[in-house]
């Protein structure tokens, strides 16, 4: 147990900090620790949580994906066009949305691996393409999402059961304990565990970590480099598509907002770093980034309950971000030989 903690110091620290921030927030909130506040907070955290997980996978292999925000925007626009109609059409529309994002991620991977272009600049370009496609689908904000779905997925579990008549409308005895859980949080955590943990344990996932640590060594050890890189970007596309789909469900519309796409991409990098993943690759994980994203969101929630001058909010957000990433500088103070710093 101690060893596990020592190996995941950054991740454990992030979890602790998040717990502290969240508990203080609820203690200060007039209606703290209530299901309503939790649902609202969860709703606002889902998109950035997914995008942060998306960013993690390329970062782990020492790359960077500047297109995650754009892919999220693109899938958001696709979802606003296809997720409505009969139940079968809705399911098909959701599958189509996720498939589109995954395919875009796959394209990123192919460009990086077979085009042999640096990930950061390749995804800068494909990000522009994604935004272009999104604008093509939705020149003006609009579209619609099935109302029942929107209601069911953005509230408590009991509302979900009630909408679709599951477990006798959510009133059975075994369902009661789970009833107040927010659906968005379950979706986020569920996807993280169902998609990320199996990937991490696979050979492809381990290869992603190996590439981030030392690509040359990974290649010499006969690991499937090309496959892992393509998989990393594909998974990033999938997570970004989850974020876009949820954003569409949450807002019941699609919006090809270039500024928003850029903000999500940059925030995803911040979340990844806050969650304990090294930008040099090889260390960290998607769960940590999820914690980092939640941390970013909780900090912004504070402004609602504390009477901070709205004009000072961006400054405080910036200072908190800068201070948080500067914690990584502790490493430089411990280094005995300065050559170890040059990696």
């Amino acid at each position, binding site marked *: 147990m101690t060893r596990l903690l020592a190996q995941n110091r950054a991740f454990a620290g992030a979890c602790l900090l998040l717990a502290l921030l969240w508990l203080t927030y609820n203690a200060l909130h007039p209606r703290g620790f209530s299901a309503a506040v939790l649902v609202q907070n969860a709703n606002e955290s889902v998109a950035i949580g997914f995008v942060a997980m998306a960013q993690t996978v390329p970062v782990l292999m020492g790359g*960077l994906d500047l297109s995650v925000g754009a892919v999220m925007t693109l899938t958001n626009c696709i979802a606003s066009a296809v997720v409505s109609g009969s139940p079968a059409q809705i399911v098909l529309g959701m599958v189509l949305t996720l498939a589109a994002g995954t395919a875009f991620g796959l394209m990123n991977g192919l*460009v990086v691996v077979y*085009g*042999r*272009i*640096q990930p*950061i*600049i*390749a995804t*800068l*370009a*494909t*990000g*522009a*393409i994604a*935004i*272009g*496609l*999104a*604008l*093509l689908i939705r*020149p003006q904000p609009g579209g619609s999402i099935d109302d029942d779905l929107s209601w069911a997925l953005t509230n408590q579990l009991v509302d979900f059961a009630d909408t679709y008549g599951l477990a006798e409308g959510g009133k059975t005895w075994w369902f009661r304990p789970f009833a107040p859980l927010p659906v968005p949080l379950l979706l986020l955590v569920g996807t993280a565990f169902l998609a990320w943990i199996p990937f991490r344990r696979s050979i492809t996932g381990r290869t992603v970590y190996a590439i981030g640590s*030392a*690509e*040359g*060594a990974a*290649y010499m050890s006969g690991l499937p*480099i090309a496959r892992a890189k393509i998989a990393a970007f594909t998974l990033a596309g999938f997570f970004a598509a989850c974020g876009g789909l949820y954003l569409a469900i949450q807002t019941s519309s699609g919006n090809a907002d270039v*500024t928003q796409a*850029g903000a999500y991409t*940059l925030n995803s*990098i*911040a979340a990844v*770093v806050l969650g304990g993943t090294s*930008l*040099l690759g090889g260390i960290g994980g998607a769960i940590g980034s999820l914690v980092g994203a939640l941390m970013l969101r909780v900090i912004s929630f504070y402004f609602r309950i504390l009477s901070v001058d709205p*004009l*000072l*909010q*961006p*400054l*405080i*957000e*910036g*200072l908190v*971000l*800068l201070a948080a*990433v*500067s914690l*990584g*500088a502790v*490493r*430089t103070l411990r280094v005995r030989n*300065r*050559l170890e*710093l*040059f990696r």
Partner: protein
Amino acid sequence: MTATLARLHPRNLRPETRPILIAAGFILVILALGTAYTLRAQGTAPLLSPGYLLQQLQIGAFLGLVAAGMMMVILLGHIDLSVPWTLTAAAMMATTVGGPWAIPAGLAVGVAVGLFNGFGVAVLRIPSMIFTLGVDSVMRGLMVAHTGGFAPRTEATPLMRSLAAGKLLGIPTAIFVWAAVSLVVAVTLSRTGFGRSIYATGSREGAAYLSGIRTRLVITGAFVASGLCAAAAGCLLAGYSTRAYQGMGNAYLLPAIAAVVLGGTRILGGSGRYAGTVVGVILIVLLNSVLSIMQMPEAGRQIIYGVVIIGMLLVYGRNERVTS
């Protein structure tokens, strides 16, 4: 004659020169396609008139200044994401101070941000990608607090206006500013010890440090140069539009990175020529302009923009199979 031609043969070119020639060739292709379009649509060829080309260079001066600073940082294998709000803050400070001290005040903002970036990246050793991102949001916060979130009422000084929008001998003054900065950067990179140290540090910092280069100073110097260039672009842009406004720098970050990379500078640092960055800037500005002449909607513009970057890099920007 034969000697010159022989030097131009692909086998005899320095590897950094090939991207520049290809990018320059692509500029001609853009001009040819645009002219073909206007000849068909209107029967005139405005793209080839000196007035139009000079105007494009004037617009390119803003991007060119930002890209010049960005290139110094990219040559080190770092990146400066704080450019947008450094540019905006410099412009806002310059118009706020006003009078003869307007431009020095703006440039001082750039130097201060550059020093701070250099401290974080070179001394604290925080990855530049995230540190400069944090600095960018702090600068944004400072400016929102300073202006109240509105465009400041203060106006650019006459000097800033004449530098950005005035003309000298029939040529826009902004082009002279860009040319002067370009000359300084080009000479610094190719002829001075500082320039050589940048290339050495960008190739392998450990080796540069062991050979006696004070890499922390070099990195800080490059970030100061980047801040200074962004601030100069901010002062110029405020002069061009007579005032500073919120988010005026947002449109310059990604195009600047793209221009540097299209010009053949390696994004991981260590190699690249300044001439390439100039060609990259002209390419991007002309591409934007020709697409707007063709009345291409925003969606098509973004797609073409992305496809062009990928296409150009597929031609000359490819890595080794395994990067170790």
